[in-house]
């Protein structure tokens, strides 16, 4: 593609705005780099564009908006008296402010409750740093003890459940589970001897023994279990 000085001048803005095709751009560059007449032209306009884009907007005079509004919709109502004094309250009637206020109040209430301050019987002494520290310390220890006990109880329950499930999974044979009738004895009649112990009875007795062992292993609930579970003998 043959490029000339006239073309360079005519397409200079297209070149600087990136609107030339690859071939045109290449031809433009080849010509300008070899043409002493075009180099200052391109450099000058490039410099101008860089300068123009770095120029910042000018701030209009501060009174301009007021002047325009006065000319179009007339002078705005100026607040006087109590409206001027309490006009700032209008800014508080926004959803954002209400949300912030509710969040702040909730945070203060949580902190007061945690520090042991009673809202029903408020006392000035409750707000002293020493009392707040003591109450917070007591509450922290209480929460820790409760959580420890809760975890311990959970462990016991889990142990009981696992033992029970283990016992239920014991293999059974038809000989041991099927009731055996005595030979020569009519069904439903008794022969005066001691009746055979059912397998369910054996299993319940086994659970009772397991609980006894478990109570021995866990001293925390030993007394409770021995009082409640072990005291109630399984028949």
């Amino acid at each position, binding site marked *: 593609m043959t490029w000339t000085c006239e073309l360079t*001048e*005519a*397409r*200079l*803005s*297209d070149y*600087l*705005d*990136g609107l030339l095709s690859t071939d045109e*751009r*290449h031809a433009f*560059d*080849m010509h*300008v*780099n070899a043409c002493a007449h075009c*180099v*200052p*032209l*391109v*450099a*000058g*306009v*490039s*410099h*101008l*564009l*860089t*300068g*123009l*884009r*770095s*120029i*910042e*907007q*000018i*701030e*209009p*005079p501060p009174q*301009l*908006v007021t*002047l*325009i*509004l006065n*000319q*179009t*919709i007339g002078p705005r109502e100026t607040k006087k008296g109590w409206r001027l004094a309490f006009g700032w309250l209008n800014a508080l009637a926004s959803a954002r402010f209400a949300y912030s206020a509710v969040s702040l109040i909730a945070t203060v209430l949580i902190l007061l409750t945690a520090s042991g301050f009673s809202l029903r019987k408020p006392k000035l002494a409750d707000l002293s740093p020493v009392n707040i520290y003591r109450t917070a310390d007591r509450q922290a220890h209480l929460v820790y003890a409760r959580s420890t006990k809760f975890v311990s109880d959970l462990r016991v329950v889990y142990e009981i459940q696992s033992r029970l499930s283990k016992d239920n999974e014991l293999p059974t044979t038809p000989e041991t589970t099927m009731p055996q009738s005595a030979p020569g004895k009519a069904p439903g009649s008794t022969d005066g001897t001691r009746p055979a112990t059912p397998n369910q009875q054996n299993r319940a007795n086994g659970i009772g023994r397991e609980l006894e062992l478990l109570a021995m292993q866990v001293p925390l609930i030993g007394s409770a279990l021995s009082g409640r579970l072990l005291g109630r003998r399984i028949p």
Partner: protein
Amino acid sequence: MAPGNFGVKLVTLAGFEADDTLEQDAQLVQQCLQGDGSAWEELVRRHTRRIFNICYRFTGNGTEAEDLSQDVFLRVYKTLGSYRSAHGGFATWMTSVTRNLLIDHYRRTKRDRITDSLEDAMPVVENKESVGRRPDQQLLLGELSHQVQTALTKLSPELREAVILRDLQQLEYNEIRQVLDVPEGTVKSRINRGRIELARILQQMGVRPS
């Protein structure tokens, strides 16, 4: 010099009318037409700075720019009912009104205008965004702004408005076509001629490429 490297960044210029801005402007215009004064106030606050800058860059005079900005908003307020969002964004329409008023003003004051003097220009405050710059950069930018402003006033109004809209207001070609109401080829030609002419004026003023 390496091919294709003339020290200019090929920046993709974004027009002033993003989709959300278009929607917000259209909504505010509707509210204005229903008599909502606060919507009009919001429109004025959103566009004052841009309109003032166009006026200032075109006239080179702060007082004239302030008066012309008021005239623009007054005309927009009176003719707001004629605005149709289907024909383009509100900002583009407002820029058209501004451009027409500027051309009227240019013709009206042609005889008694002194184009190469900025002595009577009111002092203007540079943008607050410039606070973070170093003092030497600030000084250079302020000097460049002054030089460019002087050179702009020596351009013909057709070329001046094209350069202002493209390179100072960063409008897209199709937006400038709508504002000037001329074909896009004419817009490109005016921008190109305006840039070359402006560069020559700056060179004559002794501003050399760095």
